[in-house]
């Protein structure tokens, strides 16, 4: 998108404030916006969450159903996470096939959860090589105020934590539902994604829409419950120094552990 005069003015204002250690919405540089998680928002789904991160809002529904395994992964269940921007989320969103930004968003959110091995997929096998359980976490963005990477990741994680999986048995090679045998989804860790923006030489956590529009580069880092780093993605039209990348890793661990506490409450409340 070509930068308008408004963007230029906004950028210089944001930069000026950052020089004084301030942000446009009054937050500290390493402070996230308020995170509100409401689970079981969609009772027809096997698990769901409605998450507000500042004014970005995402609804995630988890559907759990029998599926055929991937040919080379007959002993593992399936996990797929998607993300989509609804046309009502922002005036610039158009209907139609997703563009590169949205494809990247969906893939980064999926990768963070997948690579953390949050769901123990080996426990989601009905019959090896024949039939497995698939967990599908679909995010829809209903309101936009920047940093959809984290908003979608938190929504998907919360929705998975709140999910109950039904039980199936194989009858004549057809998976049949066993009534009244719901259990928790097997969880091994709670991944937390933390996205940081770089504006000038400043690193800011959880950029809002104004900051998102003007930032030079960004990095999303996902950490697991053990404080390990399990996924990362750099984006934007500038680069990071080695020191900045290492510092972003440290910030993601620190901020991640705070947000993980919030997600744990979802698990405990389930």
């Amino acid at each position, binding site marked *: 998108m*070509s*930068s308008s005069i408004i963007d230029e003015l906004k950028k210089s204002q944001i930069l000026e404030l950052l020089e004084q250690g301030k942000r446009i919405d009054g937050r500290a540089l390493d402070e996230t916006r308020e995170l509100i998680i409401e689970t079981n928002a969609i009772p027809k789904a096997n698990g769901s969450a409605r998450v507000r991160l500042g004014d970005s809002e995402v609804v995630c529904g988890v559907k759990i159903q029998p599926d055929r395994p991937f040919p*080379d*992964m007959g002993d593992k269940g399936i996990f797929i996470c998607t993300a989509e921007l609804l046309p009502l989320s922002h005036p610039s969103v158009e209907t139609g096939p997703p563009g*590169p*930004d949205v*494809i*990247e968003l*969906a*893939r980064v959110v999926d*990768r963070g959860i*997948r*690579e*953390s*091995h949050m769901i123990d997929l080996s426990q989601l096998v009905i019959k090896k090589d024949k039939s497995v359980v698939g967990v599908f976490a679909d995010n829809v963005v209903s309101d936009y105020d920047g940093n959809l990477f984290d908003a979608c990741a938190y929504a998907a994680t919360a929705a998975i934590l709140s999910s109950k999986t039904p039980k199936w048995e194989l009858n004549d090679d057809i998976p049949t539902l066993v009534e009244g045998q719901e259990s928790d989804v097997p969880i091994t860790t709670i991944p937390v994604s933390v996205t940081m923006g770089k504006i000038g030489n400043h690193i800011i956590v959880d950029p809002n829409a104004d900051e998102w529009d003007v930032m030079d*580069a960004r*990095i999303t880092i996902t950490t*697991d419950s053990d*404080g*390990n*780093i*399990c*996924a*990362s*993605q*750099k*984006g*934007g*039209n*500038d*680069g*990071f*120094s*080695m020191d900045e*990348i*290492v510092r972003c*890793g*440290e910030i993601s*661990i620190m901020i991640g552990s705070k947000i993980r506490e919030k997600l744990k409450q979802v698990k405990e409340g389930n």
Partner: protein
Amino acid sequence: MGGRESELVLLDENGIRCDGRKVDEPRRIMIKAGGLKNADGSAYIEFGDNKILVGVFGPRDVHPKHMSNTDTGILRVRYHMEPFSVSERKNPAPSRREIEISKVIKEALQPAVILDKFPRTAVDVFIEVLQADGGTRCAALSAASVALADAGIPMRDMVAACAAGKVADTVVLDVNNEEDQAGQADMPIGYMPNLKKITLLQLDGVLTPEEYKKCIETGIIGCKIVYDLQKKALHDKYFGSGGEQ
């Protein structure tokens, strides 16, 4: 992917990897600048068993017109894999993976190119993966930088790329296809060696904070090896192969 059990010994007791390399040894790399007649700039890279061709056009008129920017030229990148480049035929239509890789490569090259002298134009980078064997995005990015330089596009620095990863609990340089499938982590890095800036960074796989740092350091060492070969490729084309670096 990843985490699949297999018979493959990824790292033996002598610290030798499944393809005979040491932990800090990249695969065989060959970069050639030029080669295509019609493209304004081009490059060919062989990175292990990866074979990738890159052609650059521009600065030229922008189509569709609404994409053009009155302040600066724009950079566009298409990363594409041929149907025959992998063991099972790949659908020739661009996949979501290819669209994402096109985007990250574009954003890795963007800090290096200076396009504000060419407003309302586009520089198009076409990356064609003829054969893929793990680490295509790094090989493609390295070749694309050479092709941009070959096209005479003003640049602040080259972007060199190499992956590091974790295999059998050890941080290794330049993860190959087997190691990517069966290993523990893969971290592709794109780096501008003179400006000391990381312009591409992805990671999948679990790393401790110490391993994360070591991986970045290891990857940057690989980028510097690639950088020397990029310079040599351009030197060979423009100053004859007699002038060794």
